């Protein structure tokens, strides 16, 4: 007959304890770590006064891209200019081309980096060019391109674009409107020949929006500056887009000083810009971020071909 001895009772109790311990472990496994709360007195309050920005020169990049891209491309250049000239310079971000032009006109932007077409608009208010850039391609000029879907059977030549839907970057865009429009005119196609002419809404990113509209079939013909397709190479299949034609080359983007900016300041900034070199390891990242190969001197007369094109196209003429 099996009888429980003291030893077996002890073992039984040990087994029960082990079982409860295991269950306790299971219970504790589900318990969370206790977080410590930091006490903050929410009753201790005050009204905030607006922070006044630092005084100094203002620098603006024509908002063809979004503000973060504009910042990413040019904030190092602004920092370089401040350090090289010893002048306090801060970057400002106008929302649109027109706002940018208006701010220059009002004196709220001292140094601008703009396209030739906008420069012509600013020049009418006394702004002047003092430096121009060499594109990453190595050329101081750039072109406009006319793009269509590669599989569009109805558009094989520029003339086939008549009656089609056209989308351009902005009425103030040089590579994305003015230059391609000149190409159309050279081939006998007027703006009125299109069934629809639209411009992408909203600030920034308008070059990319044109390519995406053509790629999506929202528009039949698009106008962008050269190099835009490469920006979207990793985002869409650019083989579906074909370049129907490219304009002639025109002088590229340039640095403009507002009317009334002291000449010594302009001289100092121009000197600093012209000193930038890709050969300098400290300066190369600045130029690469800004998509600029180098900076060369510029004069207003350098942009007379653009001015002629504006007149021929009949776009907004310089005031």
């Amino acid at each position: 007959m099996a009888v429980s001895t003291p030893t077996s009772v002890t073992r039984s109790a040990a087994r029960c304890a082990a079982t409860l311990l295991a269950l306790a472990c299971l219970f504790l496994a589900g318990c969370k770590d206790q977080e410590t709360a930091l006490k903050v007195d929410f009753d201790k309050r005050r009204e905030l006064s607006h922070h006044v920005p630092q005084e100094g020169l203002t620098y603006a990049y024509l908002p063809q891209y979004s503000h973060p891209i504009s910042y990413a491309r040019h904030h190092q250049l602004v920092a370089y200019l401040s350090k090289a000239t010893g002048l306090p310079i801060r970057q400002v971000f106008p929302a649109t081309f027109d706002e940018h032009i208006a701010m220059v006109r009002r004196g709220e932007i001292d140094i601008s980096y703009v396209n030739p077409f906008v420069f012509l608009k600013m020049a009418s208010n006394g702004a002047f060019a003092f430096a121009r850039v060499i594109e990453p391609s190595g050329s101081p000029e750039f072109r406009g391109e006319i793009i269509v879907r590669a599989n569009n059977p109805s558009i094989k030549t520029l003339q086939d674009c008549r009656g089609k839907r056209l989308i351009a970057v902005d009425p103030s865009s040089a590579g994305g409107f003015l230059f391609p429009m000149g190409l159309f005119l050279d081939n006998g196609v007027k703006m009125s020949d299109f069934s629809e002419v639209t411009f992408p809404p909203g600030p920034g990113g308008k070059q990319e929006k044109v390519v995406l509209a053509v790629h999506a079939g929202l528009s039949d013909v698009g106008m962008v500056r050269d190099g835009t397709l490469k920006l979207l190479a990793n985002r869409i299949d650019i083989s579906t887009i074909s370049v129907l034609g490219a304009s002639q080359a025109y002088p590229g983007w340039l640095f403009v000083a507002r009317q009334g900016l002291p000449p010594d300041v302009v001289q100092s900034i121009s000197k600093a810009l012209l000193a930038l070199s890709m050969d300098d390891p400290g300066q190369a990242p600045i130029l690469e971020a800004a998509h600029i190969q180098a900076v060369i001197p510029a004069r207003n007369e350098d942009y007379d071909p653009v001015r002629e094109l504006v007149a021929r196209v009949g776009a907004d003429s310089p005031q």
Partner: protein
Amino acid sequence: MKRLAWLPPLNPTRRLSFATKLGLGISAIVLFVSVAMTATFYEMASRSLTGEAKKWGRVLCENLALRSRDALLAQDLLRIKNHLDELKSAGNDVVYAFVMDDEGHVLAHTFPGGFPVDLPAANPLGPKNDLRIQLIDTGSMLVYDFAAPVVVADNRLGVVRVGLAKSGVVEDVVSALIDPVVNVSFLTMILAVVLATVYARRVTRRINFLREHAASVVAGYLDPPDSAPDVPPQPSLESSGDEIQQLSETFNVMTHTLRLHLDELHAAQRELTRQKELMRTILDSTPDYVALQDRDHRYMAVNKALAEDLGHPEAAIVGRLDEAFLPEAEALRNREALDRILSTGLREEEEIQVRRDGALHWLHVVRVPVKDERDEVVAVVRSAHDVTQLKSYQDQLIQAQKMESLGKLAGGVAHEINTPLGVILGYAQLLQEDVPPGSSLHADLEIIEKQAKVCRKIVADLLGFSRQADCAKMEMCFNNSILEAVTLVRHTFRLDHVEILTRLDEHHPIIYGDPEKLKQVWINLLNNARDAMPRGGVIRVSSRLERDRGVVLVTFSDSGEGIPAENLPRIFDPFFSTKGVGEGTGLGLAVSFGIIKDHGGAIAVSSPVPGDEGDEGRDADAAGPGSQFVVELPLDHSDKAYPEGPALLS
């Protein structure tokens, strides 16, 4: 059943029935598991929801940071404020939101009526621009504060802070979940208690039967009760039931097998008892002394004969040594023999002489080793057989053979001497005729003649002893033969104060024998009786016819000093004499023995005289224990043979 003393003390739970214990145990387990699972679920749900809330807050904060980049760059405080207000209106759990520039200035916030001045420093971001979460106690609630940087081109433009109420995110949801869980757990526990009770009763019903069956087995009833549930009629180990069913059937098989084994054991026990008794009977019945001794010389077993020989009961002998019962020399001899057998493993046998109750006994001892399964000697069996009588027979046989050889030798010598002795005697007698009587020469010749006659008598005795003398048997009167001898010596004996009393059988039995030789026997016996009584005495001669046996007995009893016991076996040996030199040759009884034997009879001697003999008519002067010779002769002259050797009567 009486409780065993070594069992542990009962605690109160032992008094509960197994069904109650099982039900309570299952209920307790379900209760424990329910509580543990509910608590675990609560904690895990809280943890999961807290994690989700943190993810949500992270998404809100990072999204706000992304949406604020443009406005922050453009210093568009209205857009920032709009973003914050949109976020605040997204849910009641968002307690606050605000944006700071890279210098820590709060640009916009959602607090009405002033901004908590200590809040910006409550959740500082590190240099790595990783999102940071800090639990803040506002005094009225707990808030998860999320801080995310506004980063453009790896540069921090500012910081976005979002506060989510912990209670609203986690505790309210968990509390909403935990109530049904608790309810379900409670209902599960109630259901488990009911089901456990039913299940426990069902399970323990069969266990209780097993317990009762086991109790009946303990009481000696091995057959299962007729009310046994689920027990097949024939015990078998093949079962398709559950464990308790298998246990029940196995128990049934066990009891069945146990009963069979018990029957076999009882039968084997009876057989063993019978064989043990048989063996004990054999051992106790044998006159041999049998013993079993271990390697330490201790007795393991003795038979009845040995126990009686040692003078102790068997129980007193077992476990003890020889020294406790035997003389020191005998015990030492046994010990040495035992050691030799234990060392060599060879059996031994010997004949030893021991003294028991003052008498010497011859024992034939055999010692046999007892070996175990490893062929090692573990004990020795000793068997001793009393061969005293056999040794006596052997001595008598040797003596008889010696007598026969001696008789032949004596007969041959006597035969050779008889002729020259006759010549000497004849010439001595012839010379006496030539010599004048009275002369010294005549006297010498008479001496020669006399001594020559003595020699011829000796030779004649020798020839008679060797049975080479002529024996002329005829029918003769037994009583007359005795009377002739008595008459011949009576006068002479009276001179020596020896009286001869006769009491002969009146039937005058006739025997077939040599009268001269028998008379020689009688005279010889009478002379010996007279010689045993130098100071005189009585000689009783009686004869008795025993017709049914066909024999006639004659008894010669004297009242002399008797014969020592050690001389009795040798009294018929040739040349054995207790008389002095020249008083006897020691051939009388040997010759008489040969004559009686030649007549097919027997002669025996006893000393002292048996009590029923000779008292009648014994003289008061008669002294000494005396000796008695009994001669038995057959009535007819057929070739009836008596056993060889003298019949010794003690």
